[in-house]
């Protein structure tokens, strides 16, 4: 996390005070000021709610195999001919209610996307800061590890992790491991971007006078990295992270097709799009388009929120 002022911890007394402080903080103020940020936050919140409350609000349970029937396959959305009132946005090729499938699928996509992006960012930022700040041999080692990592695309990492995992844990319930496998492989294939970006910027920042001042004060390197350099190199990181979210969600679908992700009976948003992709020419456009719109909305909202947050964290831009 970028360094935020000590407002909150300073406020030792009861919770209401803290809340009041937050409501009164510059961040919150700038948030309310920015129409886009408010809309994006609401949008993101709604999508999150839809995803995580899916079991309660979705009209059907698309992951319950017994409740879907192939005879309902490819029903068009409500406003088209041959539609079925049970399925507002129509159904996919297996007869899953698309609306419910989007809610459920979004949950998978959100978990995988956010966890992997955050994990990658944490690994990458840490290593990048260390490499950039310390330089020399440490830098060389970390960066060469990064080079090795770059050579292996997510597909191969996923296959490796999947293989090793099933070697170690035997053939247990795949669904439990699917998440971890996906998150770990995506995180591993993404961290390098953060590491190299942060390293580059750190190399520039560490020569600046404010860092030297911190060194003169006697602040230990770890703290210099975390409190002084990190906030100043977060700009590009946030750009990459918010964009990577889309990539992670889409890549998750690719991995699932390679048989290392979620089973096909539990499609994520990306998988739904990929399935629908086969039906683009045949006129059943809704199978791909609705999940696509959902994903685009999600990515758009998160990015707008990220844009705002980045600006808000930069005191000069407030």
């Amino acid at each position: 996390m970028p360094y935020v002022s000590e407002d909150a911890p300073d406020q030792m007394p009861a919770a209401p005070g803290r809340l009041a402080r937050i409501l009164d903080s510059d961040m919150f103020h700038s948030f309310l000021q920015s129409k886009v940020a408010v809309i994006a936050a609401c949008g993101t919140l709604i999508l999150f709610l839809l995803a995580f409350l899916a079991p309660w609000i979705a009209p059907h349970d698309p992951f319950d195999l017994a409740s879907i029937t192939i005879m309902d396959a490819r029903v068009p959305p409500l406003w088209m001919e041959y539609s079925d009132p049970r399925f507002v946005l129509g159904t996919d090729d297996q007869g899953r209610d698309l609306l419910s499938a989007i809610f459920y699928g979004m949950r998978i996509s959100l978990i995988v996307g956010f966890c992997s992006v955050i994990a990658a960012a944490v690994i990458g930022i840490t290593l990048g800061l260390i490499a950039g700040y310390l330089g020399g041999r440490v830098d060389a080692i970390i960066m060469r590890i990064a080079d090795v990592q770059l050579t292996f695309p997510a597909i191969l990492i996923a296959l490796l992790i999947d293989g090793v995992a099933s070697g170690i844990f035997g053939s247990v319930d795949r669904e439990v491991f699917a998440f971890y496998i996906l998150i770990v492989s995506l995180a591993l294939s993404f961290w390098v971007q953060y590491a190299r970006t942060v390293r580059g910027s750190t190399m520039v920042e560490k020569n600046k006078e404010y860092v030297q001042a911190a060194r003169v004060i006697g602040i230990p390197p770890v703290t210099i990295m975390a409190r002084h350099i990190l906030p100043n190199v977060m700009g590009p990181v946030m750009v990459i992270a918010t964009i990577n979210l889309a990539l992670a969600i889409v890549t998750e679908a690719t991995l699932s097709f390679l048989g290392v992700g979620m089973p096909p009976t539990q499609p994520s948003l990306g998988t739904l799009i990929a399935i629908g992709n086969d039906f683009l020419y045949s006129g059943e456009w809704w199978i791909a388009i609705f999940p696509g719109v959902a994903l685009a909305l999600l990515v758009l909202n998160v990015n707008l929120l990220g844009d705002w947050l980045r600006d808000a964290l930069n005191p000069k831009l407030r």
Partner: protein
Amino acid sequence: MIGFATRRLLQAMIVMLVVAVLAFTMFRFVGDPINQMVGIETSIEEREALRERLGLNDPVAVQFFRFATKAVQFDFGTSYQFRQPVSDLFAKRIPATLELSFTSALFALLVGIPMGIYAGLNRESPISKLFLSLSLVGISLPTFFIGILLIFLFSVTLQWLPSFGRGETVQIGSWWTTGFLTVSGLKALILPSITLGLYQMTLIMRLIRAEMLEVIRTDYIKFARARGLPDRIVNFRHALKNTLVPVITITGLQLGAIIAFATITETVFQWPGMGLLFLQAVQNVDIPIMSAYLLLTAFMFVAINFIVDILYFLIDPRLRVGRP
């Protein structure tokens, strides 16, 4: 500088060694190559014999050693699926990939940089907002989806551009084929380059925008404006240059990624390049191709990152202190 380069070369070798070791431990999870090499009716005995001849029954370490000793002599073996030396295959595929990567990188940079600058300078302008949002929608849809939409629009409906392949190519020298010299070759480049470059374009655009927003508030930009320098100079020479460190980092990585792993785009457009080759190799468990490929990629990434590191020094004089 020379010392720096030789050090990097040594490191590159270590990287390649590690990559090779990792690759060899990984291959057994990719699948069984034998099934892809014989018809389904082939008997078990024959399969076993083939496996034996290929040395797949040997311990991984032995296989690795065999590969490594040959690889240092630049012999990467024969592809299982194509039954051709891997090096010949690579030589044929590299031009296609490099031309596509080059074009899409060009597209990403030529669109991404000016749009990033524009959006950074005009934070509130509707054009920049539109562009930012559109590009986000573009990247939030999977590459294959975008590719197919483009094909549907420009190939099937409008019939302007080809849907697959490189078009006509011209042979230059003994091993380079280029699509740059024919009309059909250039047309064939358009859709795949856009599909491939969309993500990098968005990334570069947003990166530059974000960095520009910070840089234009620094004192030296203010002073440059106070000196009455034209916007072109202020924006490009001063502001842009100061945003470049993260941008070239990412550009370098992305360039490497599009050269090495343009698998989906190359598959959608049947582009006869390395990405397609690699994907087929993974699908068909073509171990010789995969291992040579990973080595080549490793070397390329080390080289790209070496160049990026050099560029840091060229861009930022403050980094030259005590450096090569």
